[in-house]
């Protein structure tokens, strides 16, 4: 430390001193040009990005809020109090709950299998997990109709036992699950891979069995990743439209989710409910987003302090 300071002072007093700033500036010029607060390029870029953000997100969001509050808060509350809206939200929440629960459990299991086990076809499964990202939700819905529809073998058999999948709640849950399969898996695979097997092996050498190791070591180590994956899943479940649209048949009052209700509201002649429901969905998405941001910060912190 002291030696460095001494060097600096010496250099400052040395006869070569006048040369130094010139030299330094020449070297630093490109960097300074980029970072200078007065740079027009920088201002332009910031302006363009902000404009883009406003045009795409901020202004439409505000427009929606303004429309929803067009008659003040009272009609909005009245619209939300309508039984149809409430049924739709209850259905959305129910589907979200079941789909998220199942996909979280299987997502964790699948991530563990993909990272820890070696078996034939592993890389194939690894790739196909992402398929729901690539396939249009409508196509996913159609696949389910083809498989479970009343005209199909399986669907017909199930229906003859009084269990309806297509155009009913089970089909909608399946469709939502299909669409949200990758979120938990994709979040956990890199975390598990980075974590390695040593922690689990350490627990084994200390006498812990598989289940105990999972509960006490694996799960706590990946908890923030799980939380992040769950948040993404919930957000997607609430907003899912295409796949559910095909599978549900959109039977008003029976198989109508919040998104389907909004779609129906816009097409028919009572948009007030659609605006209100949209606002609620947008607001909950925003809250989820904030939650995700907090989670992500937490996740990165645990990664940073990794022993």
């Amino acid at each position, binding site marked *: 430390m002291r030696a460095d300071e001494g060097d600096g002072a010496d250099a400052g007093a040395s006869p070569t001193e006048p040369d130094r700033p010139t030299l330094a500036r020449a070297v630093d010029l490109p960097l300074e040009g980029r970072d200078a607060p007065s740079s027009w390029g920088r201002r332009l870029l910031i302006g363009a990005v902000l404009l883009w953000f406003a045009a795409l997100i901020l202004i439409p969001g505000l427009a929606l809020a303004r429309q929803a509050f067009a008659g003040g808060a009272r009609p909005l509350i009245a619209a939300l109090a309508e039984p149809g809206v409430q049924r739709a939200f209850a259905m959305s929440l129910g589907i979200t709950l079941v789909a998220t629960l199942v996909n979280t459990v299987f997502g964790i299991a699948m991530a563990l299998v993909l990272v820890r086990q070696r078996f034939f076809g592993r890389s194939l499964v690894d790739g196909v997990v992402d398929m729901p990202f690539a396939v249009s939700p409508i196509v996913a819905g159609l696949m389910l109709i083809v498989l479970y529809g009343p005209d199909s073998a399986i669907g017909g058999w199930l229906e003859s036992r009084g269990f309806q999948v297509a155009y009913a709640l089970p089909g909608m849950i399946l469709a939502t699950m299909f669409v949200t399969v990758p979120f938990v898996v994709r979040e956990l695979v890199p975390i598990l891979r980075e974590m390695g097997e*040593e*922690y689990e*092996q*350490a*627990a*084994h*050498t*200390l*006498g*812990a*069995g598989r289940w*105990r190791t999972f509960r*006490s*070591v694996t799960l*706590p*180590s990946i*908890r923030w990743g799980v939380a992040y994956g769950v948040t993404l899943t919930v957000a997607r479940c609430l907003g899912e439209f295409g796949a559910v649209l095909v599978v549900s048949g959109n039977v008003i009052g029976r198989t109508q989710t919040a998104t389907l209700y909004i779609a129906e509201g816009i097409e028919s002649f009572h948009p007030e409910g659609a605006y209100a429901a949209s606002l609620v969905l947008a607001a909950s998405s925003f809250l989820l987003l904030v939650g995700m941001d907090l989670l992500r910060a937490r996740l990165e912190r*645990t990664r940073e*302090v*990794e*022993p």
Partner: protein
Amino acid sequence: MSELRDLDLGARPAQGHPRLASRPSLSYHRGTWLAPRREAAAGTGDEEKAVAIEVRGLSKKYGAFQAVDGVSFEVQAGQLVALLGPSGSGKSTILRTIAGLETADSGSVMLTGEDATALPVQQRGVGFVFQHYALFRHMTVRDNIGFGLKIRKVPKDEIRRRVDELLDLIQLGGYANRYPSQLSGGQRQRVALARALAPRPKVLLLDEPFGALDAKVRDELRTWLRRLHDEVHVTSLFVTHDQREAFEVSDQIVVLADGKVQQIGPPQALYERPANPFVAGFLGAINVLPLRSLKAGSIGRGPETWLDQPPADHAEAYVRPHDLDVFAERDGKPYWPARVERITPLGSVVRLDLRIAPDHPLHIELPRNRSLGVGFAPGDEVYVSPRHLNVYDRAQNSFQPVDVHRAMGLALQEGAGI
């Protein structure tokens, strides 16, 4: 070909480390935890001789790669033994197989007399210390150390007592409520050690325990481990690729290469009497020189009579740098004529780089006091005489030690001194 490894094991006392002399005694542990074991050991006398780990014919293949090839050795109870070898020698695989973290293709593992080959890792009763600590990040130091006891459903207050005891042992008394991320590397490794020791394992296995630490901490921790082992006396087997580490810490060393045991013995014995060229070269620096070019001296009998059979033309002499003397004139001993290329004072020793005809580099280390009066300069023609060497015959795969003075006959000792 001549080679010199850059490790000055010869220059420093490998045993009887001065720092070990003044050990602070941890009498608390002697009283509570260790006393029974020690008394048993002292009482019967057999206890000390008991075999704690016995590995028989262990083999393991990864695809086409033979990682472990028919390895057998045993570890006496209470000893600290090093598995020493270069990377890829199979040492970690052996350790992990003993722990039950990996399964061998063939062979058996006995732990304190019981066949553990088929036992799952949880039931083997081993403590394992990983190179990268593997401390549970979401648990405090106290919870980490107590984990194995909690699994065994030990009552809470007893866990508390035991953890406090171990925290004292690892000298981290005030750190019970910290998280691993708040500790330094050396502290983490000590916590990992305490965690492994907490359930009183039959044996302690350490996989490159100091490999992830920087040099200074590594040195301290090594000394500390040796001291701890002298206190705790749990049978320990540790893996290392660092010869110095193995020398400084262990009672016995198992040298491994290419998945096979090369030699087993106490450190100094391995250094002084290596069984083969690999061990000779791996444990400290060594010169490899053509034996043929060693000229017979005028006293006693020449090199061709040193072994039962005259050495083959291609036989090589393996000589430690400190087993060589340099003379300005011939004095009757067998010698290599050489030219001085460089003289490097290294504190307590002076290192000479020489070259023997036609083109073999040769390195010698002389104690400072002995080289003081010599006064060589680069370019000087000198005579280099070995005091001790090993003769290696590649074709017959024989590696035989020769004490040159004795081999030449007693005439030398009486006649020509140094």
